[in-house]
Every structure is written in C-alpha cells, then in structure tokens.
C-alpha cells in the first residue's frame, strides 16, 4: 500500500471532526437520563440482588416448616407463614431465584427461536418465508397457556421443562417482528452494498442486518421477561409448577384457597410478581424510547 500512502496528505483544510458516540452509547445515555427507566432498572436490580444474596443472608429454607401455619406478618417470621407453616419471606427470596431465572431464560429462548425463524423468513422470502411463516402461524393459533400446560404435563413438572415450554409457546410474535424488520432492511442500499462487497447470506443476516434490526427485538425481549414471569406464575398457580422448587407462582397457587383468611400468604408473592413485571415493563419502555431514532431528541 505504499503507493497509496504517498498520496496521503490531504489537501483540504482539516476541520476537527466531532467526536461521535456509538449508537449504543447514545442509547445508554438516553436510557439513563430517563427517570422511568431508571426506576424500573432499580426495581429489577433490587429484586435480582435480593434473590441472589437474600437466601444466604436470611438463612431459612423456604421449604422447611418454620412455625405454626397462618402466622400473621409483623412478628417472627417477619412476613408470616403459609398454610404449611413455611416462612413467607424465605419463600419470596428463594422463589425470586426461580421466577427471575425462568423469566430471563424463557425470554432468551423466545428471542433465539423467534429471530432464527423471522430472520431467515424475512431475508430469503419466497418459499422459505411461506414455509416458516406457516409454522409460526400454526404455533400462534395454539392457545399458549393450554399448550404450555400440555408440554409440562407431557415432559414433567420441572423448572427446566417449564422454562423451555414458556419459550416454545411465546416465540411467534418475536418471529413476526424480526421478519418484518428483515423485510424492511434487506432492500436497503447498505445491504445491497454489502452484497456487492461479496458478503455471504449468513454474513448479511448476522452482521449486516441483525444489528440494525436489534432495537425493537431488544425491547420486545425485555417485555418478554415480564410476560414469562407471569406465565410461570400462571402455570404454578394452576398446580403445574415444579413442586420441589419454591417460586412466587407456586406460593400463590398453593395458598390461593386461603387467600380470604390469610391475605399475607398471597399478597406478598403477588406483589413480588407485580414488581418484577412492572420493572421489566418500565425498562422495556425506556429502552424503546432510547433506541427508537424517531423518538430520539438529540
């Protein structure tokens, strides 16, 4: 390249170029400037820390009998006991692990399956698109809760099965979103330009289009976390949760018969689910505002 370098010194007067933040950094700055998003992030962080560190610090096993059943909150244990005499606070801390793990993992599964289907369908179009979208529609026509219940019944009441089942029933909307983004982006000039540079289809999908399609997918993934937590709650509430792993949904489900006599047995786990879903929704909305260039105010 020596021939080129000899050519180098630029004749034009060099104005100092503006230092420009990457799109990611700009989005992060906007996100952190949004009080709603920060509030959501704080709620989520508090819940995650409580779930991770809480059980060791509190030292009571959620499945152990801690005292008389239906002890009201306020004394010892702090948040009372359930119908078996298990410590509610220990249940909240330990159950948070399962609920949050299920939430994040199933959202990840949702995104992976959804993006795989949607990107291939949207990028190639034609027969591949038709086939993949028929499959997507097939999954979409199944009632999600019933389908998840069937999967859990068939493969056993384990937390892993629940997580995968939730991921399997929730991906179609993500697939449609990803497909729409890929359809929009694949015709744009910079994709053509990358093609003219000799990019392979895989390179175009993963390196050229996906980073541009990411913002709405990230937002939908954030919201999917909240939905998955609710979903796990619903399955456990119906008695299809993993009976050996404490979760917020399981607490709700097992104590639902006594909700009128012992409000604390359902209010606290219900409140925890509410907070987790609220937190993810706020974060998701703030992400949306920060990433969406049309709403962006520079």
């Amino acid at each position, binding site marked *: 390249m020596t021939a080129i370098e000899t050519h180098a010194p630029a004749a034009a007067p060099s104005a100092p170029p503006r230092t420009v933040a990457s799109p990611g950094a700009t989005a992060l700055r906007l996100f952190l400037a949004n009080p709603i998003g920060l509030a959501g992030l704080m709620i989520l962080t508090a819940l995650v820390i409580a779930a991770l560190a809480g059980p060791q610090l509190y030292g009571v096993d959620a499945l152990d009998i801690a005292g008389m059943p239906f002890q009201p909150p306020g004394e010892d244990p702090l948040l009372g006991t359930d119908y078996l005499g298990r410590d509610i606070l220990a249940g909240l801390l330990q159950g948070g692990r399962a609920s949050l793990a299920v939430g994040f993992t199933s959202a990840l599964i949702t995104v992976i399956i959804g993006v795989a289907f949607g990107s291939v369908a949207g990028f190639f179009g034609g027969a591949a698109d038709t086939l993949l979208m028929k499959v997507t529609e097939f999954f979409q026509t199944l009632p999600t809760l019933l389908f998840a219940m069937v999967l859990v019944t068939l493969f056993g009441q384990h937390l892993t099965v629940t997580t995968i089942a939730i991921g399997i029933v929730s991906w179609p909307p993500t697939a449609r979103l990803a497909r729409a983004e890929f359809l929009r982006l694949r015709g744009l000039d910079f994709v053509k330009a990358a*093609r*003219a540079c000799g990019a392979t289809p895989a390179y175009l999908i993963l390196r050229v289009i996906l980073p541009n399609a990411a913002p709405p997918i990230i937002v939908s993934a954030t919201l999917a976390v909240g939905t998955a937590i609710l979903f796990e709650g619903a399955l456990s509430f119906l008695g299809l949760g993993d009976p050996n792993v404490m979760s917020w949904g399981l607490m709700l489900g097992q104590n639902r018969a006594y909700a009128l006599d012992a409000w604390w047995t359902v209010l606290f786990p219900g409140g925890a689910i509410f907070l987790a879903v609220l937190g993810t929704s706020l974060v998701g909305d703030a992400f949306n505002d920060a990433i969406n260039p049309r709403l962006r105010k520079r």
Partner: protein
Amino acid sequence: MSPILSVRDLTVMLKRPSGPVPVLERLSFDLDRGRTIALVGESGCGKSMTALAIMGLLPDGFVLESGAILLDGEDVAKAPPARLRALRGNAMSMIFQEPMTALNPVFTVGDQICEALRLHQGLGRRAAMERALAMLKAVQIPAAEQRLHAYPHALSGGMRQRVMIAMALACRPKLLIADEPTTALDVTVQAQVFDLLKDLQQEMETAILLITHDLGAVADITETVAVLYAGRCVEQGPTLEVMGAPRHPYTRGLWACSPHLTLGAAAAAAAPDPLQEIPGLVPPLGQRPASCAFAPRCARATAVCTHEVQPPLGVISPDHAVSCRHPEERAAA
C-alpha cells in the same frame, strides 16, 4: 492486451406471467485495464441493469438470458454463486448512487472498509484497520484517523461517497462500477469525486465502468462511451469522436439536452437559448418494437425505420459504431 472486461451479446430478460420481456438486448463492449467506459442514456435505458448483471446482482425476476461477461477472461455470467461472492468486492466492486443510505448506520466507517478486506483477503483486525486508514487517506478524507472511528451519520454526503470509494477500492479491484456516483452530491463535490476516481485509477490501474448523466465528466475522464437506448446500444466509440461528432440522432439529442455556458459579450448578444429536449419518453418494458425503438421520437425517422428490424451496430470508422439507418452526417456536429 486482452480487455479486463468484455461483455458479449449480453441479453437480460424480465420474467413476467405474460412471458419474458427483454430489458437488455445483445449488449457488447470491451474495457481495457486502467481505462474508463461511460454508459449514457436516459433513465430506464438499462444502464444500471448492465451494472447489476455484471455484478451478478440482478433483482428478483430478472434473468441473464444469454451472452458472456468475461472478467479478465473468466465468464462471470456462468460463475456459481460462491465464485461470484469471491469476486464481488475483490476483483470487481461497485459504488452506489446514494452515499447517504449505502453505509450501514450502526458500524463505524473503519469497520465497513475492513469488511471487504477481511472477507476476501483474510486480514486480521489490526492489518485491515491499517489498510482502511490508508484507504481513507487515499480518498483524501481530512483527519482520517478520527474519521476511521466515526459513524456514517456524522459525515457529509461527499465524505460518505469518498468512504464508499475507499470501500470499493480497498481490495484493489480490476473493475470498478460506478453507478451515478455523484448524482446525490452537490456540484463542487461532484468534480472532486471524479478527480479522485481518476487519480486512484491511475495508481491502481482499475478499469472503471461509469454510469452517469454528467456529460462533462464523460468527456473529462472516459476513453470510450456507449449510448444506450431502451436496452440497446445505439452508438459506441471513442469518447472524443462520439461527443464531437455524434452520428445517432438519439446521441445528438442527448448532447443537445445539456446546457452550454456562454459567457461575457457572447452571452449578452446571443438570443436566449432554451435548453433542448427530446420529445416523448423511453418506451416502457414490453413495448419495445423490433424496429428502431427511437423512431417514434426521431425527427429523421422514415417508413423504413418503423417497418424494418433495428440495424445492428454498423462500423463507421475504426471503433466507432452506430445503429441507425439514417446516421447524422459527420459534418453535422
């Protein structure tokens, strides 16, 4: 010396339910190493289609019906997709019309120039970045070190087109296709971009296929010109000869459509010289007769023009060929 690019009887069809419709008909031209050919003609005459056919990037529905596209002796018209991908961006590359949208908004300029280098030449990140920097300097971007890490939205149109040129030339291609590279830029920048292309061409010995409406640029930087009308080549020859003494009525009409600047006393004295136009429109796809497609718009057309098949390119002088039954007299220019 055999030409770098040799297009032979290239015919492209658009597949329609009612049957295939010709888009390009038996187009032929040669391009030598380090030389430039211009494709000129109105919009819809098949200039961009020619470029996309050579790159193997015809849109869905368009098929390369027959003909050969020899790039340094290799027929890319028959090359399998994997071979085409290996050639694109490496042996042949393309600059697009719209620099504002042809760069990926989420990657830095440096990353994008590195793309082709890493895909085709297997360079590591550091080596590719060094080459990218050298390319940015070669296209005369000021403060190249900082620009390397800039995102496209921070650059002006002219800067972006320079970046596009840097990307296209990063692998030192044998053939560069520039599809209206300056249409979206303002006039002062247009001249800079053409000068830049010419300079880089001399260094790299790249052959350039230039598609443009800018006849000044055609006269300035090309050696050969091919005039397309309705998917057919109507006149072809050395630029000076074709521009100085156009023989096809369409070529003459096209030349007359560009404004001529008269300055000083001559301008004041001369009667207002309205910009000429060629009446009518390019016939749309599927409505192109086998006879001369330009005849309906041609002042010189006679019955024989509309009843007989359009004549093949007939050689008038060495290298200069025209497809017309009533070519303009040489003195007419």
